[in-house]
């Protein structure tokens, strides 16, 4: 089934540790995105990539980095996790006509 795969589904992480959230799509969409969802705040854009080899900062990029080495993969890295990064993270992709979202990664930083 075409779509977006996110891994892991959930994770408990010690503060200060490094963590990479994985996102893979099989739809050959050019654009990909990372959002975080927090209660009462909706979804906020962390980073995006309009095409392989390019990335850009969203609304809340601090503490996160991304790379886009190829069309299919768009990993999100937390270099040194802090408790305020506890959230649900959604990866999405777009072909210019609509957006497809992954099922999310629930991350708890303790």
């Amino acid at each position, binding site marked *: 089934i075409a779509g977006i795969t996110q891994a892991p589904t959930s994770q408990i992480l010690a503060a200060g540790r490094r963590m990479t959230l994985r996102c893979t799509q099989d739809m050959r969409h050019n654009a990909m*995105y990372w959002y975080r969802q927090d209660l009462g705040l*909706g979804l906020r*854009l962390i980073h*995006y990539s309009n095409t392989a080899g390019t990335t850009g900062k969203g*609304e809340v990029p601090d503490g996160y980095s991304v790379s886009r080495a190829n069309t299919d993969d768009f990993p999100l890295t937390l270099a040194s996790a802090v408790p305020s990064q506890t959230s649900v993270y959604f990866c*999405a992709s777009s072909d*210019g006509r*609509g957006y497809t979202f992954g099922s*999310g990664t629930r991350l708890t930083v303790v």
Partner: protein
Amino acid sequence: AQSVTQPDIHITVSEGASLELRCNYSYGATPYLFWYVQSPGQGLQLLLKYFSGDTLVQGIKGFEAEFKRSQSSFNLRKPSVHWSDAAEYFCAVERGYSTLTFGKGTMLLVSP
């Protein structure tokens, strides 16, 4: 800066009653507009979208939305709510460089 406002944090509707969820945006040009629904612990499902043309848009699950340029609004409606519609609803606007800006969401509760 563009923004999306969903003025109602929670709404309670009786099953079988009509529903309207409000969404206002601030954006210089006519944006692309979306409504998504999220059930607890789940991802986002697209209900409908507006790109251009007819301002009344039909979506899945019996939902519709009307784009009103003069009011900068894109309200979601359903004539008769079912208990399974209880969820959180997000309005979103596509920005100039093709990213989505979301409202903070409206939680719909359905009473028997």
